[in-house]
C-alpha cells in the first residue's frame, strides 16, 4: 500500500465531502445569502499585484480563481501594541478575489482593536513592487451564499491528498473540468469558498445608490 493510501484512505473517496455537506444541511435549508458587514475590502492592483500577493500571502492565488488564504507573521517584529510576536503566527485570514490579472480584492476582518490591520500591514512590504494598495470598503459589500444547488450536478471540484515535502499529507483542491460558474452579474465579484468543500460562495457586491429602497436593504 502506498504512503498516501495508508495515511488517509477515506480522503480518496470522492463522495466524502458531498456527504459532509448533506449532514450540514444546506439542501434541507434551501439557498441562503447573508451580508457580512464586519468584513472590510482591500484592493491590490498594478502590474506586480499577483506577484506581490503570491509572495505575501500563504497561497498561490490564481490556482483556484481566488479563495481562502491568509497572511502570516513573516519575521519577529514589534506590533503597534509593543508585543513581540514570533514568526509563523497568523495575522490575518482572508478571502482573495481575482478581478483581473492585475487587480485583486481582499475581504478581511480588521476591527479597531486589531493589532495589525491589513490595510497598514501590507504597504511596508511593497518596496519597489508596482502595486497600489487601497481600502475600498466604501465601494463594496461583502456577502456569503450557501446551501445552493450544489448537489444537483454541474462542475465539481476534487480534493486530493498528496504527501508534502515534509512528509505530512497535504490537501489540494482542483477543478479538473474548469471552475463552476458562480452565476453572478457583471458588476459582482465572487469566488468559491472551498474551506469545507463546495459549500459556500463569497461575494463582493458594489454598494448601490438605492440601497435603502432595495427590497432586501438591511
Amino acid at each position, binding site marked *: 500500500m502506498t504512503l498516501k493510501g495508508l495515511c488517509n484512505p477515506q480522503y480518496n473517496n470522492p463522495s466524502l465531502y458531498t456527504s459532509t455537506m448533506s449532514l450540514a444541511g*444546506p439542501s434541507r435549508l434551501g439557498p*441562503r445569502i447573508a451580508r457580512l458587514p464586519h468584513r472590510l475590502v482591500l484592493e491590490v492592483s498594478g502590474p506586480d499585484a499577483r506577484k506581490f500577493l503570491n509572495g505575501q500571502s500563504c497561497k498561490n492565488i490564481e490556482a483556484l480563481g481566488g479563495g481562502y488564504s491568509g497572511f502570516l507573521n513573516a519575521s519577529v517584529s514589534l506590533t503597534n501594541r509593543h508585543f513581540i510576536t514570533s514568526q509563523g*503566527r*497568523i495575522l490575518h485570514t482572508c478571502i482573495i478575489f481575482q478581478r483581473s490579472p492585475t487587480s485583486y480584492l481582499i475581504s478581511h476582518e480588521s476591527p479597531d482593536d486589531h493589532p495589525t490591520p491589513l490595510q497598514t500591514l501590507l504597504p511596508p512590504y511593497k518596496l519597489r513592487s508596482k502595486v497600489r494598495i487601497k481600502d475600498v470598503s466604501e465601494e463594496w459589500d461583502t456577502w456569503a451564499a450557501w*446551501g445552493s444547488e450544489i448537489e444537483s450536478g454541474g462542475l465539481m471540484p476534487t480534493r486530493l491528498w498528496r504527501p508534502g*515535502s515534509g512528509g505530512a499529507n497535504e490537501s489540494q483542491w482542483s477543478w479538473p473540468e474548469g471552475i463552476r460558474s458562480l452565476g453572478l452579474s457583471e458588476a459582482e465579484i465572487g469566488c468559491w469558498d472551498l474551506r469545507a468543500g463546495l459549500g459556500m460562495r463569497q461575494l463582493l457586491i458594489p454598494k448601490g445608490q438605492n440601497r435603502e429602497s432595495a427590497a432586501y436593504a438591511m
Partner: protein
Amino acid sequence: MFPASLSANHDKASTEDYHLYRMLLGLPEGPSEIVPGAALPLESSMDIHGGGKLAVLCAS
C-alpha cells in the same frame, strides 16, 4: 445592495445565520477565533481549509 443575480433563488439570512452555518462546518474565522499574532496555521486548520501550502504554513 442585494446581489441582483442571486435574489431570485436565495433567501435573505442574517449575519448570525452565516456564523452559525460556518461554525457547524467547523470553520474558524476572524480575529476573535483566530487570534492575530498568536494562532498557528495548523492549529487553526488553515491547511485543511485550503489556506495555503503546508510548506508555507509550516516554514515561515
